[in-house]
């Protein structure tokens, strides 16, 4: 498994901590939200950088106290159809203004690449043999009907009535 870069932002590989393990000094680690909630003080003191793993069921409010302090959030999909992960990413961006990396892991499909990117994800942790399909899926569409996390607030509806209309309209999809 290696990372697929969706947005241009992605972090180095972090070591995932075991359940009750504490990080070594200066290490970059990936920890579950539960661990972070229990040991936040020592984890943030010891490490140089922290990524937090959350599952799709996590209420977004639980992340608020950490958004300013973690480098990235890893949202684990138990199954590709669990759309809560998409709302969670949107919340992180819109409600908390999270600027760090958002990563999708677990069960996601290559054909979801653009949905993920547009909901605010930066990267996907997926099997190597899937990378090509992810890359292909990312190039499929050139414009979208909704405002999203990557469109600088411009949906097709906005582009139709803006100055850069001609350029975007002629941009051929995939």
């Amino acid at each position: 498994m290696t990372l697929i870069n969706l947005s241009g932002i992605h972090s180095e590989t972090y070591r995932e901590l075991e359940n009750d393990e504490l990080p070594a000094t200066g290490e970059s680690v990936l920890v579950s939200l539960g661990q972070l909630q229990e040991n936040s003080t020592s984890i943030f003191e010891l490490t140089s950088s922290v990524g937090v793993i959350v599952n799709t069921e996590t209420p977004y409010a639980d992340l608020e106290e950490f958004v300013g302090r973690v480098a990235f959030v890893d949202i684990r999909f138990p199954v590709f159809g669990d759309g809560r992960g998409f709302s969670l990413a949107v919340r992180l961006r819109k409600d908390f203004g999270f600027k760090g990396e958002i990563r999708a892991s677990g069960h996601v499909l290559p054909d979801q690449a653009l949905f993920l990117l547009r909901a605010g994800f930066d990267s996907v942790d997926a099997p190597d043999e899937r990378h090509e399909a992810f890359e292909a899926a990312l190039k499929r569409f050139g414009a979208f009907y909704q405002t999203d996390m990557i469109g600088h607030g411009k949906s097709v509806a906005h582009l139709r009535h803006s100055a850069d209309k001609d350029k975007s309209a002629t941009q051929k999809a995939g």
Partner: protein
Amino acid sequence: MYAYDTFDRNIIDARVAEFRDQVERRMKGELTEEEFRPLRLMNGLYLQLHAYMLRVAVPYGTMSSKQMHRLADIATKYDKGYGHFTTRQNIQYNWPKLVETPDILTELADVEMHAHQTSGNCIRNTTTDQFAGATRDEVEDPRPYAELIRQWSTFHPEFSFLPRKFKIAITGAGQDRAAVKWHDIGLILRKNTEGEIGFEVIVGGGMGRTPVIGKTIREFLPEADLLSYLEAILRVYNEQGRRDNKYKARIKILVDALGAEEYGRLTEAEWHKIKDQHIDVPEEEVARIKAFFTPPPLPVLSDDVEEVDTFARENFIFKSWLENNTNPHKVLGHVNVTISLKPHDGIPGDATDAQMHFVADLAEKYSQSEIRVSHEQNLILPHVAKKDLPEIWKALDANGLGSANVGLLTDMIVCPGMDYCALANARSIPIGQAIADRFDDIRRLQDIGPLKLKISGCINSCGHHHAGHIGILGVDRRGEENYQISLGGSGAEDATKAALLGPGFDEHGIVDAVEKVVAVYLGEREEGEEFLATYRRLGPTPFKEAVYDAD
């Protein structure tokens, strides 16, 4: 009608290319059926009992003659020469080959049609009043808003993997012909005291095994805020809707669990956070879309047309047809004509390729090349001059489409049932046909008057039996098909849930039961009282006695 611009064109072409690639990967074995399934479903492709089924969207039930001709051509070329118009104002093809489906989508895209999100756990085709923009009792044409919703909901980055499917319906008329209160979200166009346009917003309606009538969470939402408000409703549902049990996953279950008031509060709180985030489109965009729906320039004529009256006096079927199958148009001297797809011995909602071409030709000649599909599975020619009616009816009649039964007992909604559907527990179509046989005479039907009969072949209730004045549900009882009868449902503005009358019947018994119910009504009705009103006045007891006492 809405016409695509370069943006729309690029998006639909990219989607077809994507699906072609997905089908190729499936054929080569690079995708398992399990992985392919969600992808094909988002393009309306189901695996049914005998074959694949492709459900093509007719956005808000409006199409052109050109599009109808193309639907007919597809039926000829890729199917067995017919299609089935559905309660979601869509059309289904029952026999496409998987390898040919990308070609079908290409041919559809060529006429600005698609199968986007006609299936899957996403926002489905927005349905509306079949007479939208043409009927006399309308506040505002709902179709521009339905088109706005179509675009906003297409490949939505956040709401394409919902707990369950999601259906939105919108009406702009006083009389609700779109069953909006039976939808996940129902929208009713209103004008406030300042004359501004807005929506009453209803959430949590739905049929299936837990029938619920939607509840109003906002009396008046300004039109400019529609999409951000929908986004707020959907976000609450996407986050909190149940995902552990697909039968409890629709929004109605969440609204019931939280209470409509709380759901409304959560929606409002979310909406206040997001309403200035450019989710709603600029004013110019609303104006751009509305311009596509400018009413056709029709001359104001007289509603009294001598030759129509004369022909009606000569021909009883035409007289009934005039009464049942036409709806007053906004412009005097015009009507909207409903073409019944419930001919005797036919399959409700089915149309052959020849009939589709014929209707498309009629529309070119008489209805501004415009055709509508109703959720009651009929076709509509809007904007028809009254003086043309005798000629139109004669042409329809000569092509097996002259049935005068719109709104009457044999104008049934019938789901495909076990003849086609993988989910069904019982056949629906033969039951509908047996009932139509029993009530064959137009004079008798005319005497019985408006009566909505709806049949579902399983608890998923695609046949809308919960909203039937008479609803029939087919179930499997120890390996035998068994049919339960319910009474008193309504899909109109006075929406009610039909109540189960008693134990079920076999396929012959159910026809007798319907006849006994109708006999009670005929015996008990007061002057001018329709079936539903009589049932509401009397309650179930006399019907129950008539249906079960003889045993």
